């Protein structure tokens, strides 16, 4: 229950408050979202397998976002930022696809 309410509340808060993201952080927003989606689907799969722990989720989310942002930041400094963000999106995208497929199999047995 906590995550669903939290998600909905967060979306509402974001829509109502309309916080503006600082210019310097804007390139990292899409990467942070992909990292967050990866953490979310991974957590949901773990939940279906009965191994979910909220502490691991919090740690994996924060480290995911930080590492993804750090990779893109380093890439920006050495001039290959867009290539490295593509790399991050590809790797996390593969994980998201695999996890969603596993969730689908667990939920619908198909």
């Amino acid at each position: 229950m906590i995550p669903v309410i939290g998600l909905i509340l967060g979306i509402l808060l974001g829509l109502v408050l309309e916080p503006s993201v600082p210019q310097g952080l804007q390139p990292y927003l899409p990467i942070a979202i992909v990292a967050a989606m990866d953490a979310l689907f991974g957590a949901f799969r773990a939940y279906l397998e009965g191994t979910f722990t909220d502490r691991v989720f919090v740690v994996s989310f924060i480290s995911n976002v930080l590492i993804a942002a750090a990779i893109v930041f380093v890439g920006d400094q050495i001039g290959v930022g867009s290539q490295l963000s593509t790399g991050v999106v590809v790797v996390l995208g593969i994980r998201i696809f695999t996890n969603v497929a596993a969730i689908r199999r667990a939920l619908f047995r198909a």
Partner: protein
Amino acid sequence: MDLLNQIIRQPVDPDYAAVAARPGPPRRSRIAFAVVSLLIGALFAVAALQTTRSAPDIARERTELIARIKAAQQNQDALRDRAGALAAENARLRLAGLGDDAEARSLERQLDTLEPEVGTTAVSGPGLVITVDDGPGTDSKAQVLDTDLQIMVNGLWASGAEAITVNDQRLTSVSAIRTAGQAITVNYRSLSPPYTVRAIGDLRTLQARFVQSSGGTWWNALEVNEGMRYDIQSSEQLELPGDPGLVLHYAKKAGS
């Protein structure tokens, strides 16, 4: 490959299994959990808002750029007109400066024959108007290429044409027909289809010779095989503008 395989084989954080395997109930951190889910939700909302809000900005920037391009093109046209007027003024002053002796008259005759040939002055006379366009559909094979126009123009020269324009761009002794970006450019001007090629020459022989030249056969094949538009019309009176952009950069008159 090993890295990708590992990502596919182990898509869930292994810590979940490790913590679950520990004896005893796992330690909970509900507040951090709630805060993180709140943060993820806010992240989604902010990113979506940002994208939708910046969309009109991007569209405005685009129209602004288009307006600037149009203004620059108009400016270029105005400058071209001015260059034409100045060239005409030059010719008039040159005529006045030459005087009226025998040497001056022979120089004038030389200028009169050379200027229309290199393409700096406007000329008129009978000739052909050839209109070509891309074939139907989006097939890139049926698009007019710079080489197609080059072959046509070379065919016209070989058939006795004395002056040629492509979409009102006069071909001078230094003009190039080439593709730059998405468009064919002549005299550094981007052209858009349909392409109209006007050529002044002897009406009795120009068309017959052109049809038999490499340009004529090439375009006949394009019309038949690719369905490209290829119309030839003859005209009793054509007015071809000159290209005033022709100057000598390095060459000097011999002996001076």
